[in-house]
């Protein structure tokens, strides 16, 4: 066995806590980028087709916010790329032959694409033509989706590992890359996560639109944002609920212990109840203060009232996930999701009544629901990751055998440093984001503040001379004179 097998429990706990903290912080930014990049691409296309200035104003408004969020995603993601090796070398050595290439493919196909075209997207509005700019925006949006694809392949493989053999040093040897990439849970997770990112951004855009509608109901750009966001919520949430249900049934098939923990089912039975409330008590193997509806649990999972669903008693106790956290994280996600679905429904009804822009109470509700999508993402990932315990690679590699031979002191040092720095830096960043969102959007939306100056090739004497300062026309003609 590796040296990691002897890792003290505290080291495992610190490494897990650190990973949980850094990945939770990180995932918010990529999710925001995935949704927002697609939204920006849609806005730019609509602007190119219709020429309507409100689209361009909304584009510029969200572009500034995108650039700040993206920067935070880049630096927090860099941490992830190195943390796996630093804190989890037992895991990274054994799973390296499979996960390493997947993560490297992600860098090669997604990160460079995003980074390469991001500069043009943010700074190039005045420098390149409309078509090239549109192309750059699309490339960034596609890059975010490619990134989601590889990372979900990697995570799904950890949940439902296939297509490998065990090598001479205990490492996983890939035998079938196609099976690894398109492992049984990957399609479900991909759909669920991408929609989640879209919904999160829709609710943020909706909240910002609502905030400004409360101040000025006639603000054309705010109306546009709000309307688009509410369409997205109304149409997307039902699809997301179906996608979640499909993923749940996939999990039942491949990770029944996780489902048992999510549902709070301690005993195997036909016609499992749906536990609405309870405090899972692992010691006594039951839920304290349980409130449940008979048979509905089986109905949801097996689509039959008397379907048999395994409880935790079907598994040895040492293979149980973290029941309490899994159970409650799942309920937070589902509860929030239902509220989001409801908001979408109400928006449809108001739209039908022609009162979408004239119902302040609804605008307040939309504002309060702004972070709902992010809460769902965090709760959902907590559900699936704590539900995967005690394994890093499901059923094959235990978390306790995955940590690095790093001392507890070192782990403690890095935990304290990371928590402190993340709190300061990303706390400030989120504050800036909120401050930007508090600025009312207007039709004369200015370009991003740190726009580099115009090209100045011709200023310098020398061979490059002769090329005078070109007149650059701004896309869409006049977009307000920048404030000095």
């Amino acid at each position: 066995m590796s040296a990691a097998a002897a890792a003290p429990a505290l080291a495992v706990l610190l490494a897990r806590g650190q990973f949980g903290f850094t990945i939770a912080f990180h995932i918010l930014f990529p999710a925001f980028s995935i949704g927002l990049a697609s939204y920006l691409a849609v806005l730019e296309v609509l602007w190119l087709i219709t020429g309507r200035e409100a689209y361009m104003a909304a584009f510029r408004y969200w572009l500034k916010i995108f650039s700040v969020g993206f920067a935070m995603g880049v630096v927090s993601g860099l941490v992830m790329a190195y943390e796996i090796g630093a804190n989890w070398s037992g895991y990274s050595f054994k799973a390296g032959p499979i996960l390493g290439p997947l993560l490297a493919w992600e860098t090669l196909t997604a990160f460079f694409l995003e980074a390469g075209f991001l500069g043009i997207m943010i700074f190039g509005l005045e420098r390149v033509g409309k078509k090239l700019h549109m192309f750059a925006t699309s490339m960034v949006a596609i890059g975010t989706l490619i990134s989601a694809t590889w990372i979900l392949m990697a995570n799904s493989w950890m949940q439902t590992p296939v297509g490998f053999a065990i090598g001479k040093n205990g490492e996983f040897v890939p035998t079938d890359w196609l099976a690894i990439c398109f492992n049984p849970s990957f399609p479900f997770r991909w759909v669920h996560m991408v929609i989640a990112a879209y919904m999160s951004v829709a609710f943020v855009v909706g909240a910002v639109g609502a905030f400004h509608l409360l101040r000025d109901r006639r603000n054309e750009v705010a109306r546009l944002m709000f309307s688009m966001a509410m369409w997205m919520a109304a149409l997307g949430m039902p699809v997301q609920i179906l996608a979640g249900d499909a993923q749940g049934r996939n999990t039942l098939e491949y990770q029944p212990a996780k489902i048992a923990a999510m549902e709070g089912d301690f005993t195997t039975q036909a016609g499992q109840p749906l536990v609405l409330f309870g405090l899972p008590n692992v010691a006594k193997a039951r839920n304290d203060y349980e409130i449940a509806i008979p048979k509905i649990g089986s109905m949801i999972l097996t689509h039959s009232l008397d379907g048999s669903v395994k409880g935790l008693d079907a598994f040895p106790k040492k293979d149980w996930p973290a029941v309490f956290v899994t159970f409650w994280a799942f309920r937070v996600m589902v509860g929030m999701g239902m509220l989001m679905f409801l908001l979408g429904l109400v928006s449809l009804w108001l739209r039908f009544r022609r009162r979408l822009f004239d119902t302040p109470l609804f605008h307040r509700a939309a504002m309060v629901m702004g972070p709902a999508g992010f809460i769902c993402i965090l709760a959902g990932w907590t559900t699936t990751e704590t539900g995967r315990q005690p394994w890093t690679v499901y059923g094959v590699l235990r978390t306790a055998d995955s940590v690095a031979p790093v001392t507890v002191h070192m782990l403690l040092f890095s935990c304290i440093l990371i928590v402190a720095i993340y709190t300061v830096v990303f706390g400030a960043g989120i504050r800036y984001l909120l401050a930007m969102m508090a600025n009312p959007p207007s039709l004369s939306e200015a370009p991003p503040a740190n726009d580099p100056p115009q090209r100045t090739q011709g200023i310098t004497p020398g061979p490059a001379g002769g090329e005078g300062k070109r007149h650059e026309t701004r896309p869409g003609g006049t977009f307000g004179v920048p404030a000095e």
Partner: protein
Amino acid sequence: MMSLISGHPILPVIWACIMAFVILAYVTLDGFDLGVGMLFPVAPDPHDRDVMVNTIAPVWDGNETWLVLGGSGLYGAFPAAYSVILPSIYPLVILMLMGLIFRGVAFEFRFRAIEAQRHWWDWSFFGGSVIAAFCQGAILGALIQGTKVVNFQFAGGSFDWLTPFTIFCGFAVVLGYALLGASWLLWRTTGTLHAKMQRHTFILGIVMLAMLAIVSLWTGLLNANFMHRWFAWPGILASAAAPILSVVLAVIFFRGLAHDHAGEHDRVPFFCALGWFVLGFLGLGYSIFPMIVPPSLDIWQAASVHSSQVFLLVGAVVMIPLILGYNAMSYYIFRGKIEPGAHYH
């Protein structure tokens, strides 16, 4: 050279070359970004600072992505090396990442903060750049120095890396990046900032040459077998090329600097400085090959299984030329000198 690899599978050798290219790409590209951050203290004027940041704002993210590829590529092609190296230099990695966080967000936050808070992010930009560069140098020093490995796991102590040599390497890389930053700004700015950078490039150029010489000698003294490889016949023909070419570059460098007005020659010192980095890096590669974690793991021991290396090679061969293509496009679009007087809000 060929005798070293005859009888061994070729794929890990190809991957070693790709990884060397990736790390070199990172050092040369992000090196000047970090260097620009380090030069903030010598340019206290806020307008100058804005210009400095704007010379790299559109490209820094693409440059830093090479570091992500360094990590994920090493993980993909040589997982054993990745799993050994990172725990062995644990505190340096954590500090480097924290430095890069402070410097990366400062690009955006500087322009978002209220005037009173702005200097905090200027400090963050400067401090983050220095810390990240220092850690990278120290990591390089720690690798040259050697890492204790038992059964594919790091088996040393938490502070094995901490020696005068690694600290010196840290400072050497800080000053080397500062030179890259200064010569980049010399190329991309005008006016007083340009004149200022001319001075700094000159001083830092002399310092860099001294550092290069000291690190080379010290490396040789640390490792008798490096020394042996350098001075053994006919290897000496190859190893003599590095110092000779460095001197040639130095001549071109100082001649390129000796102009009073801005012009085409402004880019010469920057490319000479890059040349020194490339030569130093090739020299290092030549010294340690075929080791990847000297003195414990060679590239064949650390290599991932064959099918993983093949699977990833497809990606590298197809994507890296493409990546270089659109990175170059970005540099082309944002070419030319950056003038002060952009409109900020």
